[in-house]
């Protein structure tokens, strides 16, 4: 069947790239479970258009992954915040981040950013792409990428302000 052939080809394509794609998805969503859901959804979208690809479909897959994360997970994040607000009886942890080090804390702060800003920062600092390359992956104008990166970094700095009082390493005193 044509479907089985496509799945077989997809398996071969994933043999080398699956781990890296999975890590990207985890960074975009904040958890392995959500990352797997995201990657699975992107792969299903890829299969819909499999016959169109003559060469390497990675560009399409990456763009789908990032755009799904940028568009779809904003609402999910809001919903989780709403559900959290409904949990009036649950006390917040006394110091939920005291046990993790600064690098982990920054990633946690990254996960609080709006999905579009998070997607841009992951592309820029995880994939280490230039602004132009990031714009090409997302299919956005370069100016949009620049402003999203700028806003994302500014938000990260604002969010980390609270840390600076308790985590002096942020100001360059890292051991």
């Amino acid at each position, binding site marked *: 069947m044509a*479907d089985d052939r*496509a799945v077989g080809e*997809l*398996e071969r394509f*994933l043999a080398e790239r*699956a*781990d890296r*794609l999975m*890590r990207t998805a*985890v*960074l975009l*969503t*904040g*958890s*392995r479970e*959500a990352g*797997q859901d995201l990657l*699975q*959804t992107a*792969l*299903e979208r890829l*299969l*819909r258009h499999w016959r169109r690809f003559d060469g390497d479909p990675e560009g399409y897959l990456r763009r789908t992954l990032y755009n799904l994360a940028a*568009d779809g997970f*904003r*609402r*999910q994040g*809001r*919903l989780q*915040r*709403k*559900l*959290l607000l*409904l*949990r*009036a*009886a*649950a*006390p*917040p*942890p006394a110091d*939920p981040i005291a046990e993790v080090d*600064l*690098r*982990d804390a*920054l*990633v946690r702060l*990254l996960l609080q950013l*709006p999905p579009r800003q998070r997607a841009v*920062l*992951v592309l820029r*600092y995880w994939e*280490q792409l230039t602004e132009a390359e990031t714009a090409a992956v997302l299919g956005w104008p370069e100016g949009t990428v620049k402003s999203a990166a700028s806003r994302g*970094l500014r*938000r*990260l*700095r604002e969010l*980390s302000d609270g840390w600076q009082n308790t985590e002096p390493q942020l100001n*360059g005193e*890292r051991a």
Partner: protein
Amino acid sequence: MNTDVEELLRDGMERFTAEVHAPAGLAGRAGRLHRLHRRRLAARATVACGAAAAIAAGVSFAATDGSAGSGAAQARTAAYVTKRVENALAGENLVFVGRSDSKMGDYVTWAYGPQNRWEAFSNGESAITTGGIQPVKGPYWDQGTALVGGKLVYAYVTYFDHRYSLSPLGPQETSACGKDAALSMGAPVIPTTHWTAFIDATLACGDASVTGHVWVDGVETTKITGKPLTVKLSAGYSKVVKEKFATARWALYVNPTTYLPVRMYGSTETFGGSAGTFTSSFVTNVRWLPPTRANIAQTLVPIPPGFHRFYGLAGNQ
């Protein structure tokens, strides 16, 4: 943000994903998802054809129970309800207002076109504030669309600390099939303002079914019940609520005369952690109001004078 922090962020991302590996069978599962997607498309086409045929033939239907059902009867029922809702809404342009109450407080939801608003009123027992758990009575928070500078944005106002935050408006419509819809319907959140399309899609994809007739305020309504959905909570959220899973359940009651939703039931149960089982359930009574200027204005979140803007999630930092 200095370079050190950028490097720390990069290192942090490496650390965060160091032990992450793709599970086996990704391609196979994607293939199965793809086949499911195609079956859903086919099912929608079938229901659309069924609707046309049922209306053309003047088909009526008998009440069904939850187990009923031949596929054909279910499709006819779905088509009938969908068509009547469509008819009811076609010439009207009404404002949705839903009132929910729970042991924690009351919620009022408003919706009109792209505008929506969700207000919470605490009953004074307890609420999470910047100062911890404190008794709060009256307006607690208000969130949804706000008109700022002539543009619709997403606003979140917290009354207990007199703050608000603004952010760009995200996608407003939740797909009727899948996790987002089920989770929204399990809370007093309105996932759609296009009930026709929502009911049509959720019945067509099998995420909900017509489960009979129920009397609501002296009127026999058609009951549509969603499939219960259980999800694993994300690590961060799980840590805060000290539970691991959530199950959402919902039902919608449609007035047989106006064919508009008049009551919604939703519940979200979290469980599997040290906090034990916690269930939030809501009954939302819905009214449809004429689109007067005053009613439409209620669908926008007002920013009260004197409140301070917070650049982040107000009240949840």
